[in-house]
């Protein structure tokens, strides 16, 4: 796990990346403007919000759980930011403190919801599928109630930067995404906490017997994930210049899919940030190039579905075959 660097290059270790590369080359040849710096950064920007969440979803899935609430958390956090901001502005507070407090409130509240869900999952032993599905409903309901169904306005103009600004040629959300990739990679590979997530997901009994506090580890993971989804929500609302209760639908499925394309298993114990990154890029490239190729919406469904299975198939099956042959 920690020592890939010391070993030789193995084609089976890089299969998913190779598949992705082949796909990118194919699209470069067929889709106009695909292989431009602008478009590549564009893809990166498009995947950033889901990517941020996917980093933490990787942890959730490694720990053997699932989190369906992230999409609603995105909407919830956006609404909270906008609501708090508007309220504080209304109370005469300055632009900057109002929005900063809004962001903090949104991320903190999201994190708290994560902890609450984790408590129900670990203490009351309700399956995470049910708890986070309920969380999904609750948070969506809360967002709609707070916003009364309407997007909340009132951001200062510069706030957009968080969602759609650029630093040089690089989109700001992409920078955050890359930051989170590094952080979560570090956590999972280099810290005892990260290592325990694998153990907890692989065999909770063995982990508990080894003195790991399974409940605390799972709670941490859910809290971090919800907080990250909250942050993504803040950024989405900055991008759209309003806190809308309707955004974030399908985020849960999309992020879980990216994580699993990246080689994680819903059974827990397996998964890497590198894989998740590839999974995110894979889906991002697919979406982007379908549009660039002008593929009909309906065909997009079909092509996307087929390509995802195909890629995962290549990755699992071919890897095994190659391994047997000693590559």
């Amino acid at each position, binding site marked *: 796990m920690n020592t890939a660097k010391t070993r030789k290059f193995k084609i089976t270790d890089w299969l998913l990346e190779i598949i992705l590369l082949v796909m990118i080359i194919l699209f470069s040849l067929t*889709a*106009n*403007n695909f292989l*431009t710096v*602008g*478009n590549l950064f*564009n893809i990166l*920007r*498009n995947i950033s*919000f889901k990517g941020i969440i996917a980093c933490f979803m990787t942890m959730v899935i490694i720990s053997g759980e699932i989190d369906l609430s992230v999409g609603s958390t995105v909407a919830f956090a956006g609404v909270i930011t906008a609501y708090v901001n508007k309220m504080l502005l209304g109370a005469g507070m300055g632009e900057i403190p109002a929005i900063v407090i809004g962001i903090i409130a949104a991320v903190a509240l999201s994190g708290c919801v994560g902890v609450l869900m984790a408590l129900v999952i670990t203490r009351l032993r309700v399956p995470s599928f049910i708890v986070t599905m309920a969380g999904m409903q609750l948070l969506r309901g809360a967002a*709609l109630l707070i916003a*009364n*169904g*309407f*997007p909340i*306005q009132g951001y200062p103009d510069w706030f*957009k930067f968080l*969602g*759609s*600004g650029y630093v040089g040629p690089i989109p700001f959300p992409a920078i955050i995404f890359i930051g989170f990739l590094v952080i979560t990679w570090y956590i999972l590979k280099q810290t005892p906490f990260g290592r325990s997530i694998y153990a907890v997901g692989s065999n909770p009994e063995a982990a508990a017997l080894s003195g790991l506090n399974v409940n605390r580890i799972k709670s941490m993971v859910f809290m971090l994930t919800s907080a990250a989804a909250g942050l993504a929500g803040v950024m*989405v609302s900055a*991008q*759209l*210049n*309003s806190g*809308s*209760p*309707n*955004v*974030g*639908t399908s985020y849960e499925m999309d992020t879980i899919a990216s994580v699993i394309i990246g080689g994680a298993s819903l059974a827990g114990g397996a998964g890497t940030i590198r894989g998740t990154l590839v999974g995110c890029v894979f889906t991002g490239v697919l*979406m*982007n190039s379908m*549009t*660039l190729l*002008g593929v*009909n*919406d*309906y065909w997009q469904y079909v092509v996307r579905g087929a390509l995802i299975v195909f890629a995962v198939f290549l990755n699992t099956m071919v890897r095994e075959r190659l391994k047997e042959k000693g590559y």
Partner: protein
Amino acid sequence: GNSETSSSGKSSQAESSTSKSAEKSSSEASASSAEDVKVILGATGLQEDQFTQVMINGYKDAAAELGIEILTSNSQHSSETETSQINNMLEAGAKGIIIECVNPDSSAAIAETAAEKGAAVFACAITLNSDAVFASGVNDCYDLGESTGIYAKEYFEEHFSKDETINVALVTYDGQDMTGSDARITGFLDQLSDYDINIVARQEGEVADKAYNVTTDILTKNSDIDVFFCASENGVVGCVNAIEAAGNPNNTVVFGVDCSEQLVDMMKSDANILQGTTAQDPYTLGTYAVKTTYDYVVNGVEPEEKDFHADCILLTRSDLDKVDQWLADWNEHAK
């Protein structure tokens, strides 16, 4: 001045139609007499967006005024959910059902079921192709597209010549509701037949965050897009923000359908991207639906207009007063 005539004109029209029919009070379809039984109406809306919310406010205000109970629910664009919910309402004793239908054709069956069970069915906001409907009050999707299209034509006359090719991209909600989405687009494009329109992309952006990504992709594909047409408010929000974030090198403009506070801001913005959109008047539709249904159920009054078409409210950068007026009305009804 224009705005006042359009929005208040219509509501007065609605009011007059109900009051007139109340006077007539012939009772052929009457199912019950008013006083002793509490009248319950049921209404289904499509989703949790602002349009439905304002329409529900219309329902509720009208119901409160009439002293009746109204049950509301949300079909989330799902025909079966709609069917279940209407069945639930019928079981709850609803004497009238107001449907903002998921689909004009596939919602017909439940409308007929409701009618068979003795409820009066009113099609609200969206036409429902069924004889079971005793009346409807809609903003026709084609009309909405047409209204924006007419303004777009004016805009084109100023900015483009007839022999130049104009690149147009469409942001739709085809996957959610092809019928409505397509009608809006056709309504829009039909007005521009004099021009050499080149449709460079037609992509789904039924939620704002997706519309944003789709727009950036489309802009990458064709940097020389002149016009975006977005078939819904969510599409406009995502699209305009994306164009603005990209710096808008080609001075692309956007036309839309539906309106909200955010779209009003966009029309006022110096970025000069959103040119015009056509708002509906869901509040008027909502109150009209409840009052008409009440009159029909309780007083047996046939509506004067079987197919009431609410006015399309064209809102553009060139008439910001009207935009402001619209927003004021809207905010009043949004609470």
